């Protein structure tokens, strides 16, 4: 992380500047989308909802990537699990069969999403965390691809083509069919997630997790079973991401295996690294920049020529490379520099 140690990033000067900025980003996310709705630009509202769901996922990935040193290349799998936990019960509630899970109840949807994501994360983590480095990256990716092909084979739920969710999760008092209410649910979830991850990383558990990333052998020699702490964090991150998936499913009202394609996991990793791993607000910024850039580049290219829009990947990829080369601490490191000079 290019000279910015974790302790410095978390606890040194520059902290106030960054805290103000974090709050600013979160406030903007809170007021802008309803504003778009007000000026009758629902497209941007949709964009913001997707962005916030992905930001929750990125924040959860950052718990294990930025604070546990676990480069999981299969984190999108929990998005899929979460979304299918909305789609499948809702499908059966509409078309019958499988009475046991058939329901529109949102609490059950979210509960299933969190439970199955945590369970899958436990199995994957228990095996993958025995490996290190590149092997860990590859094996987490392999597990997510396994799930991908499993979902493809689920003919009953559309297989490859996916499945439309006819009825969204139902909650008392609020309706997710209303875009503003849906957005606010996602937005509040994001804030709670950021606060939760922030609390965890400063807790006794979090200190051990961060210590294990810093120097695993040292932690073992003072008596910590580093593996257990990593596995716990892995499960927590999976559960949070599954929750994000359930929200995303409610937003898109469509589930398909494509949601957990390995490129999705890659995008999530980029959001974390772009924004700044090892900072709780970094991944949120990463998600914002990622989604906004996608749109902006596509629009700008389309100005030059009608067909160019679809080539947005190329300049986007180059921008990502540049950001990693010149801002290895992520975008948040921009806010550290000034404060660091005592």
């Amino acid at each position, binding site marked *: 992380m290019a000279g910015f*140690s974790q302790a410095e990033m978390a*606890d040194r000067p520059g902290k106030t500047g960054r805290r103000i900025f974090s709050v600013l980003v979160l406030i903007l996310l809170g007021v802008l989308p309803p504003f778009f709705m007000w000026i009758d630009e629902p497209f941007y509202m949709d964009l913001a909802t997707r962005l916030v769901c992905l930001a929750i996922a990125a924040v959860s990935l950052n718990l294990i990537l930025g604070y546990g040193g676990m480069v999981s290349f299969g984190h999108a799998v929990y998005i899929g699990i979460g979304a299918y936990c909305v789609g499948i019960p809702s499908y059966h509630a509409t078309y019958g069969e499988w009475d046991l899970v058939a329901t529109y109840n949102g609490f059950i949807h979210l509960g299933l999403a969190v439970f199955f994501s945590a369970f899958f994360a436990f199995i994957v983590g228990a095996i993958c965390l025995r490996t290190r480095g590149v092997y860990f990256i590859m094996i987490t990716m392999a597990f997510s691809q396994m799930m991908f092909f499993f979902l493809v084979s689920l003919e009953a739920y559309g297989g490859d083509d996916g499945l439309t969710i006819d009825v969204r999760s139902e909650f008392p008092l609020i309706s997710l069919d209303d875009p503003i209410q849906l957005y606010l649910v996602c937005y509040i979830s994001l804030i709670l997630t950021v606060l939760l991850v922030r609390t965890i990383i*400063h807790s*006794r558990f*979090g200190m051990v997790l961060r*210590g294990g990333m*810093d120097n695993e052998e040292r932690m*073992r020699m003072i008596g910590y079973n580093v593996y257990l702490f990593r596995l*716990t964090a892995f499960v927590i991150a999976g559960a949070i991401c599954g929750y994000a998936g359930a929200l995303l499913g409610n937003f898109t009202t469509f589930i398909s295996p494509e949601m957990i394609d390995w490129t999705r996991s890659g995008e999530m990793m980029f959001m974390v690294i772009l924004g700044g791993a090892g900072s709780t607000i970094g991944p949120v910024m990463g998600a914002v920049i990622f989604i906004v850039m996608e749109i902006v580049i596509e629009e700008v290219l389309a100005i030059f020529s009608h067909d160019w829009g679809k080539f947005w990947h190329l300049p986007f990829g180059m921008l990502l490379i540049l950001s990693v080369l010149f801002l290895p601490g992520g975008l948040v490191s921009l806010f550290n520099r000034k404060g660091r000079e005592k």
Partner: protein
Amino acid sequence: MTPLLEIKDLNKSFGGVQATKNITLEVLEGEVHAIIGPNGAGKTTLIAQLSGGTQPDGGAILFKGQPITKLAAHQRARLGMARSFQITSLLMNMTVADNVALAAQAHEGHSFRFFRPARKFPHLRNAAQEALERVGLALRGDDVASALSHGERRQLEIAVALATKAEFLLLDEPMAGMGIEETGQMIELLRSLKGQKTMLLVEHDMDAVFALADRISVLVYGSIIATGTPEEIRSNDAVRAAYLGED
């Protein structure tokens, strides 16, 4: 005095090289026991087997009368064994105080707590501060560990070991790479711990060894060729031939 650590007939080979050959050794409670030997004598391998990094091929290690040969490193640590490393091994990106507080937390347990900030546990901070005062780093608590000088890092290693409340310290060349003045400070520090902690000291610096050790074992080609008080070792002909003669 009863032995705190017993090594019985320990053997370890790497391919054709036998790095540990039938080592039998007792470290008595409260003593400073030094292990010396020329390069390649198998000191590092022995330490690795004691701390749990390497499994021996045969033999047994008993700590407080309990066999620990099959235990993982973190389980041995919890029984009251702490080690310092030949090449400093610290949490370089964390503060000095956090390094020590994490050791105190390891001793206390209860690390699966997710909500209250770790720095808001006064007794952990106090334990850390106490250990830092002991080694002379009281004013460096808020600095990042990587900002410490080499000598200070070695002192911090000792503070970490102290904070685990281990009664047995496995010190792997604590003076390695230190200047004369720093070595002197480290000798003073370890001397101040004598009687309170049992120490197994692996060290190249002969002045330090003879200044600190109650007993010395000499390791040559994987075997212990002599064990005795510093005087006995100094006058032992086999030792002179194998080792001290070189100096």
